């Protein structure tokens, strides 16, 4: 292969693929049998991190950045004057294998601009995955993009070779989509998602009866929404996200703060700051819903349509619900422990285990690794000292912000300057 030419293509097609934030390589078990290449244990590995702090787990590239669509928020949109390139199927296969053998990556994340038609594009994505699996005996991770509008037959085949399939809804609201991507219809995204969901269910139930049933997209489906491109509020984003989690059994929804890439008047101007703090708050909310037994209506509703920026959503919920606290560390059930600001999943599990042996004190909690600077105001324990003193929510907020630091200096400064 000509390394110079490949290098050029790689630069263009990796650069164009980087706005897709998904990098997960977990959730799929492929055991290496008969001395093949690769083995996925179900745990993802981040092989390195970019200078923006994001995990690099997969070779994330577009097959091509030629595209017949003209979505305003996308760098590869038809009307954008940029260098275009396209990989051959074999080139992607060779790159993946050679990177994998050197332990650079867990596998491939292949997406594409849409050239000619949806099916023509999807067919080539599937061809790469098929070649990797059947010719190279590759057991690493493969994530393919479902191309909106691709036929059911191709989507069925895709799932046989890929671990994960995803289709990005990108714009959380219907109105936003109409404004920014007039050629695209929401139904086109939903159709392949629905197909894959049905296939996953069907293959799973067949596998229970016939053991040799092949795997179908074992790591499930995911999607992505762009945050801050179409004026939507946090409630709209999270309600849409919940809808997709439930309706399509998604494994993950990703939130991607919009990075300004054009002078289009419909979008935030070039140079506008990427809404990273907002993105972070959305992920925190997503976690509360998936792992901390919260319901979305408790965090976002008609009275609270936006997440607080100066404090995280769990603390914010606690401030609005002071009547639930303090919680007794030695007695509270898991559901309530999970709601205490400063207690993470791991701390909760450790507390539940450790309190079987003895009553826990502040000293124990500190050693277990609880963030006491927050938690102490919301719990009691076997020690006599009590920090929970009928504070007013605003006073308590000041106390907690006073003895904690934030990674988002801008965020908090902005807040202060509003009042100061």
């Amino acid at each position, binding site marked *: 292969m000509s390394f110079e030419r490949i290098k050029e293509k790689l630069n263009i097609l990796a650069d164009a693929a980087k706005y897709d934030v998904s990098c997960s390589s977990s959730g799929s078990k492929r055991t290496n049998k008969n001395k093949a290449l690769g083995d996925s244990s179900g745990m993802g590995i981040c092989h*390195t991190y970019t200078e923006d702090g994001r995990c690099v787990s997969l070779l994330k590239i577009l097959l091509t950045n030629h595209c017949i669509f003209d979505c305003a928020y996308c760098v590869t949109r038809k009307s954008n004057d940029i260098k275009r390139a396209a990989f051959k199927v074999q080139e992607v296969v060779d790159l993946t294998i050679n990177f994998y*053998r050197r*332990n650079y990556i867990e596998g491939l994340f292949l997406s594409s601009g849409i050239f000619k038609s949806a099916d023509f594009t999807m067919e080539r994505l599937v061809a790469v995955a098929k070649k990797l699996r059947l010719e190279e005996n590759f057991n690493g991770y493969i994530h393919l993009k479902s191309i909106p509008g691709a036929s059911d037959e191709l989507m069925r085949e895709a799932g046989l070779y890929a671990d994960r399939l995803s289709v990005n809804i990108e714009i959380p609201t219907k109105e936003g989509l109409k404004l920014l991507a007039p050629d695209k219809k929401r139904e086109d995204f939903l159709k392949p998602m629905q197909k894959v969901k049905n296939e996953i269910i069907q293959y799973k139930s067949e596998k229970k009866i016939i053991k040799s049933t092949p795997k179908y997209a074992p790591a499930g489906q995911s999607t992505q929404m762009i945050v801050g491109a179409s004026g939507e509020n946090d409630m709209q984003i999270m309600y849409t996200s919940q809808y997709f989690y439930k309706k399509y059994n998604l494994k993950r929804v990703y939130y991607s703060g919009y990075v300004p890439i054009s002078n289009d008047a419909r979008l935030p101007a070039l140079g506008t700051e990427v809404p990273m703090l907002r993105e972070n708050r959305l992920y925190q909310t997503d976690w509360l819903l998936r792992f901390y037994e919260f319901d979305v209506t408790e965090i976002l509703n008609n009275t609270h349509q936006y997440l607080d920026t100066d404090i995280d959503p769990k603390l914010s919920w606690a401030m609005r619900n002071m009547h639930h606290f303090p919680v007794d560390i030695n007695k509270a059930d898991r559901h309530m422990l999970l709601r205490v600001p400063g207690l993470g999943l791991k701390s909760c599990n450790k507390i539940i*285990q450790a309190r079987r042996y003895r009553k826990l004190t502040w000293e124990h909690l500190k*050693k277990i690794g609880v963030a006491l600077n927050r938690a102490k105001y919301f719990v009691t324990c076997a020690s006599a000292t009590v920090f929970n003193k009928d504070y007013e929510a605003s006073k308590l907020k000041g106390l907690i912000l006073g003895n904690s630091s934030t990674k988002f200096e801008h965020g908090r400064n902005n807040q202060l300057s509003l009042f100061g």
Partner: protein
Amino acid sequence: MTESILLYDGSFDGLLSAIYYVYDCKLQSVTIQREDKPRPMFGSVVRIDTEEKKAQRVWKAIRKKSKNSQSFYYTFLSERGDMERILLAYARHVFDSGKNIAGDYGNEAVLQVAKIAKSVGREKHRMEAFVRFRLTKDNIYFATIEPDFNVLPIILKHFKSRYADQQWIIYDLKRKYGIRYDLERVEEIEFNFENNFNPTETSELIFAPEEMEFQKLWKNYFKSTNIKSRKNMKLHIRHVPKRYWKYLSEKQLMT
């Protein structure tokens, strides 16, 4: 009572044999240490012979009663100066309490073992991520590492099942030994590197002609996939601490 100083050969079985001895002789005040470490001035010194049978008995008992024997082994691999003291205290707590103590984080030794095992586990995970193979002329994928802890014994399985169809060597330059997979089995090896051996150089004398090209492609990919307007070096360094950069091809200066 005089303190007993038990000297062992530094192996895991040796340490377990020493713990066996502690129980066998009902010792109270005791220090276990490697025989190559400087000894305290006072105390009666006993050299412990490593005996597999005795070691097995202790190991079995710990496994049965603590349900978390992996943490015990990981703590051993940490090579910490006070590792023997902590593990003896842990073993004592296991044997004294009679019930499963795996979750007893209110106990000092249990918590310490859990914490040390966590950092050894993190290093294991890091090495599974940060090993960078380079293809040699004789078709062996070769990597050098300098991990904080002795993790080769616990990353072996991961690499063996993942790279079952290629020959590879992972060499720990800090501890001067490596593991080699020859398509059949994995074995320990020791090299005598020449004095001018530079582990970060990809010399054409040793490595395959296309090797450097793939390193360049990888480095290019690493650069292209970064989003400049989201730059966050603090987070980058927290995930990829500088001490690991030496062997990461994407962090090398390239001409």
